[in-house]
């Protein structure tokens, strides 16, 4: 056999991968909803800007902690279930679970605990660090899955697509903020990009979560097919 034989992503059960995808999607949706609800309240003046900040901070910190732990557990569980390249991928992916924990705490951590020299763009830098902590491991995860020869074909294509999803949802908002505040202040074209980027920022957990669910579904379908009798394979004129 010239190529390695394909394997499902998880040897025994796909539960951890499903759970991982589900929690990430759920967390993404939750932050998006709560975030826009709170910002609507503040934009309409129903709550003061400081009340908005405190509630958002409290929400982000608590849910971030829980999500971070869950992600970590499920990532490790998936790594255990998987083998070879896929295991390494999930192990690397586990690093991304630190991002939700960082979400509400980045500024304080960077500027007071680590004591970075404060500068003009404190919050942009903190935002960038949080995004990097999530985007890099996830991209590595998808890259490894995309070029894993053992990974079912559908899964490889989905992983390949997911690399760009993570890239876009993570770095586009930062690019827009830097453009808006530094390179071209006041440019209406950049103004419209801010409108777009504030929607995209809501998807940065949601879309990767869906991709993982997608992978889980593909892998389960592949596992079910390969377990069924050999004849279905024969019809394809290929001798197992």
């Amino acid at each position, binding site marked *: 056999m010239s190529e390695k034989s394909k394997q499902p992503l998880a040897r025994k059960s796909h539960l951890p991968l499903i759970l991982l995808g589900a929690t990430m999607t759920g967390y993404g949706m939750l932050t998006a909803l709560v975030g826009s609800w709170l910002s609507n309240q503040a934009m309409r003046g129903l709550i003061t800007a400081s009340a908005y900040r405190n509630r958002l901070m409290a929400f982000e910190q608590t849910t971030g902690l829980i999500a971070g732990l869950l992600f970590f557990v499920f990532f490790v569980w998936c790594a255990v279930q998987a083998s070879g390249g896929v295991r390494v991928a999930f192990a690397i992916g586990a690093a991304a679970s630190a991002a939700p924990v960082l979400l509400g705490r980045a500024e304080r951590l960077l500027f007071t605990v680590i004591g970075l020299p404060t*500068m003009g763009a404190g919050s942009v830098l903190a935002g960038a660090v949080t995004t990097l902590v999530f985007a890099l491991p996830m991209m590595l995860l998808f890259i490894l899955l995309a070029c894993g020869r053992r990974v079912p074909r559908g899964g490889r294509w989905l992983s390949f697509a997911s690399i760009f999803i993570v890239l876009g949802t993570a770095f586009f908002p930062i690019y827009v903020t830097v453009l808006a505040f530094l390179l071209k202040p*006041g440019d209406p074209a950049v103004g419209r990009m801010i409108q777009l980027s504030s929607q995209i920022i809501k998807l940065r957990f949601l879309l990767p979560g869906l991709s993982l669910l997608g992978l889980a579904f593909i892998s389960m379908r592949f596992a079910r097919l390969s377990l069924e009798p050999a004849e279905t394979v024969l019809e394809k004129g290929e001798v197992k």
Partner: protein
Amino acid sequence: MNERIVKLPFFENLLNLAVLALLGLLCAFPIVHTLALSFSSASAAASGRVAIWPVEFTTQAYQFVLENPAFIKSFGISIARVLVGAPLNMLLTILVAYPLSRSKAEFRARDFFAWFFLLTVLFSGGLIPWYMVIRQTGLIDKFWALIIPGALPVFNVILLANSFRSIPKELEEAAAMDGAGHWTILFRVLLPLSWPILATLTLFVTVAHWNSWFDGLILMNSPDKYPLQSYLQTVVINPDPRMLTERDLALLQLISNRTTRAAQIFIAMVPILLVYPFLQRYFTAGVKLGAIKG
């Protein structure tokens, strides 16, 4: 300096050096602090974190000042002003100092002219008449308006006259014996012996022309004729946000009036740091000794 035959006793010399070193430090600290300020970012300067070392190093202040095409133009004007103005000042100073240094016998009208020039230091008609006279003599908005009105620095004249008078009379009489007129006495005898004071006055005149900004702003009718310091005076960001465009406010994060002003000071010091060491060579005392023996 005069040849020291006897050096200071050890302890006294040490004390002398120590006090001078302390004075040097006392003067050096604000200068180093200002230099550090000119290379620091606005937020570092604003929060007073800059001591003697630049914090959040940036050359934006210098870029803001030097980048503007007006800077190169005004720099050229200042150089031209010094190259034309300083020699003219020195020439007039020498030409006036010599007659004033003659004894009353040699030049009966000496006292009259002495007071004639001194009164101009004490009395001034004020800004309006000075501006009107310059306008009537057709100098407004001309390069020469920066040179001619202030061409005779009376303070320098008095210094030079005083120095000429301290030169031993015998030298002049020796030259006069060989039939030398006033001109030859001045250029052959007095000037060669007054290098130190001439060097000092050249330095003062150069600094005066390089750093004066008020006449440039008042006498010129358009900003592209401003000399350097006049231009630098205008490169100040008005922090009142109501007057600023987005671009200015973006700039305000990088630099503030503090950092730009610090940068301006160092640009003002440039000629001194170049010219002064060169002039100091003439501050040696040996010159007179040679003349007498020779």
